[in-house]
């Protein structure tokens, strides 16, 4: 079976950051593999190690800079990667449908049996691409999966979906399927030195829209980011000042007033 893992390089904002126009200044962002996708990659690699998956392919929509991140997925065990980019994405706020356009074309080419996506991207947090993709390509799906037991022979994935409030839904999903992976599904490995060396030799195929038979009009977004700002702090917290000892002393007084005492 072939597993396709969608991954994204995300910007993580520093504690102190400036907003330039409608984005955080690039100098105040650190780029990293999206946390949820890290778990999705690990799930794919574990299926390969269990002899269930023959190949794990990572796909990303991202500029050349993203190669460093996608190489991390390769270092952790993905076999090869496809990176899609086009001038049409430059400066655009991609909506779910335009991402699905791209992934649909990749699915047509790769013909995976299982697609693993992170539940959401840490930066834009749409949380919708995997399920929308499933609808487009005619796969079934399960969103927010935190337990996965794949029965390749029966052609089903037995999953737990993590609902709110400590309830998990036990669901059987027919393959081929798209699963959106929640953090905690597994323990993502660190890339080993050997893995990092091997990743240098693995293929990252760079692809643009024309290669996929798409035009810029296909991926035109219905959404425009018009404003970005820091939310007004609603804090009315009493900030306790002083060095650690003083602050702890004052806090101890407060806690005792509230009835805390062992």
């Amino acid at each position: 079976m072939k597993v396709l893992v969608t991954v994204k390089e995300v910007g993580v904002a520093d504690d102190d950051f400036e907003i330039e126009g409608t984005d955080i200044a690039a100098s105040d962002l650190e780029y990293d593999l999206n946390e949820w996708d890290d778990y999705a990659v690990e799930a794919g690699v574990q299926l390969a190690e269990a002899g269930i998956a023959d190949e794990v392919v990572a796909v990303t929509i991202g500029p050349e800079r993203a190669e460093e991140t996608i190489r991390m997925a390769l270092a952790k065990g993905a076999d090869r990667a496809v990176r899609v980019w086009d001038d049409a994405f430059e400066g655009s706020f991609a909506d779910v449908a335009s991402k699905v356009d791209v992934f649909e074309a990749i699915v047509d080419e790769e013909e995976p049996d299982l697609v693993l996506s992170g539940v959401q991207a840490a930066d834009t947090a749409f949380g919708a691409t995997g399920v929308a993709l499933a609808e487009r390509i005619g796969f079934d799906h399960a969103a927010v999966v935190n337990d996965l037991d794949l029965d390749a022979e029966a052609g089903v994935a037995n999953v737990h979906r993590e609902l709110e409030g400590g309830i998990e839904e036990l669901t059987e999903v027919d393959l081929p399927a798209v699963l959106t992976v929640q953090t905690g599904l597994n323990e993502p490995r660190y890339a080993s030195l050997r893995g990092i060396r091997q990743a240098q030799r693995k293929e990252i195929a760079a692809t643009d829209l024309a290669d996929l038979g798409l035009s810029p009009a296909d991926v035109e977004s219905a959404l425009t980011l018009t404003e970005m700002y820091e939310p007004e702090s609603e804090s009315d917290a009493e900030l306790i000042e002083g060095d650690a000892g003083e602050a702890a002393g004052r806090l101890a007084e407060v806690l005792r007033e509230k009835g805390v005492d062992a």
Partner: protein
Amino acid sequence: MSDVLVVSEHRRGELRDVSLELLTAGRELADALGGDLHVAVVAGDVERFADDLNRPGVDRIHAVANGEEFDHTVYAAAVDALVETIDPTAVLAPNSVNGLDYAPAVAERLDLPLVTDVLGFEYDDDGLTVTREMYGSKVETSVAVEGDRFCLTMRGGEFAPAEGVGDAEVESVDVETPESGARVKGFEEVGGGDVDIADADVLVSVGRGIGEEENLELVEDLADALGATLSSSRPIVDNGWLPKNRQVGQSGKVVTPDVYIAVGISGAVQHVAGMKGSDTIVAINTDPNAPIFDIADYGIVGDLFDVVPELVAEFE
């Protein structure tokens, strides 16, 4: 056209709070659009749910009595069919785990622009603009939505729940649902075990700021010194450092202790959803901009590795 269709949510026989919040949001949007507010209730005891959803401002309730519990195939088919007959401008679903299991599929199928995790919206002559967060709640954004129709999933807790008794018409709708390729086999409650953090009067709660598993000793000492129970935010449980029954937040436990001490927790919205009802909230965090300070009553901007040992000493 110009109507709004709200899709309600229930689980294991209970209407979820977000359903009543969606009525308020849906009514606001319907007023801006100059249309009616329709509400869909799908699966389970639809008559009872329809009664509960019948609040002032609701024009029509559509009950689709297929199945008992949530099934994304049924929900998608029901919404699809209702959109066909109502032809609404907007479809509003909860931005919940189940909402995100069908709303993106519906938007895709009906070719509706989709915006998820929406905090608020404005509709005027220029069209729809929504407010949502990015970068882990560090910034808010305005997003203009192009198109005559759209689908939004709304974050819980942002709109007041609709109150009162309305006089909406309730009609039952027959929807044929295709066989589902995803079958719900049951539910499991996690977070049983030795301790119920929801019972604790005082919680010391630890987050990502603790850095390493071996540093947990520090907060265990604090919990001991205060006679408190130890809980945590999600990353600590994801890392396997504490069992799932210690997790506070949307997917963990909702707690309302007398005192909640957040140590190295930034206060992501999913965490806050699980502890904002605490009587007194204390936060210790190095980042003065951390959202946890927005809901804290007392805050120390400082390094937990300096402050916590001093606090332990105060109580020993």
